[in-house]
């Protein structure tokens, strides 16, 4: 594939795209958010293809690591540009050049629902288990520090965390099932029939 990209064979780019597009999209979205994602993915592929053609990738078997390095540099570039733009905006009181960062209502709703589930999990736990999780997730204390200060074994610590996560997943699945049931009943009502029984 690398040789085909270097030779400007379109099938090389097609293969590169089919292998990496979802992964690059995921990485860019996770690091930079969903704004202008298609453009950023496109830019990443252009940069990767150009640098491969220039011969920057000397060992083709290291392609995956190379792609990750290029995309990581691209992310650093975007962040640097955004920081610089913000600084200029504050300094010179110019019109902002940053992208519109309006919150996505659907995403916000999902995040709020997840937080409500996490609150349910925390509020039903014994005080001591809740303290473990608050220290770990909020105060970012290390497992070692938490175990030392709260006199826990590593196993007790892991169990507390995994039980909370299992409960969160369980509540999330129940919520999802309820929503599916609600959608089915709405669909049935629209069709003028009774909802199908969930199996």
């Amino acid at each position: 594939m690398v040789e085909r990209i270097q030779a400007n064979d379109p099938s090389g780019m097609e293969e590169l795209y089919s292998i990496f597009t979802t992964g690059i999209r995921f990485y860019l979205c996770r690091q930079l958010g969903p704004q202008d994602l298609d453009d950023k993915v496109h830019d990443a592929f252009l940069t990767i293809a150009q640098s491969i053609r220039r011969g920057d990738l000397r060992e083709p078997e290291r392609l995956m690591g190379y792609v990750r390095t290029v995309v990581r540099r691209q992310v650093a570039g975007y962040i640097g540009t955004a920081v610089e733009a913000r600084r200029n905006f504050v300094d010179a009181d110019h019109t902002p050049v940053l992208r519109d960062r309006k919150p996505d209502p659907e995403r916000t709703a999902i995040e709020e629902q997840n937080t409500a589930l996490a609150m349910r999990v925390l509020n039903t736990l014994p005080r001591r288990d809740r303290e473990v999780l608050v220290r770990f997730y909020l105060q970012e204390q290390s497992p070692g520090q938490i175990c030392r200060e709260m006199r826990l074994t590593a196993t007790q610590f892991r169990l507390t965390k995994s039980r909370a996560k299992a409960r969160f997943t369980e509540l999330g699945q129940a919520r999802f099932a309820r929503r599916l049931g609600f959608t089915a009943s709405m669909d049935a009502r629209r069709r003028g029939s009774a909802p199908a029984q969930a199996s």
Partner: protein
Amino acid sequence: MPNSLDPHLDAETTEEYSLQQLSARKTAEVETHLLICESCRKAVAASDAYVAAMREAAAKVRETEQNPMPHRRMAAR
């Protein structure tokens, strides 16, 4: 970590990645794997959501513990 026996990320590594607690070398390994593994991307997305929710909820719990029932204090004034 991905290895020859299990090519996927384990739950602990996934959570450490979400919490940005991995070393630079491990982060590079994880991110390289994520480029080509859909199931691990799903696991990381779920872990990111869980960590964010727990962080937010833990902050609210802490706030409530530090300022218990502010409405009662207001009423007592």
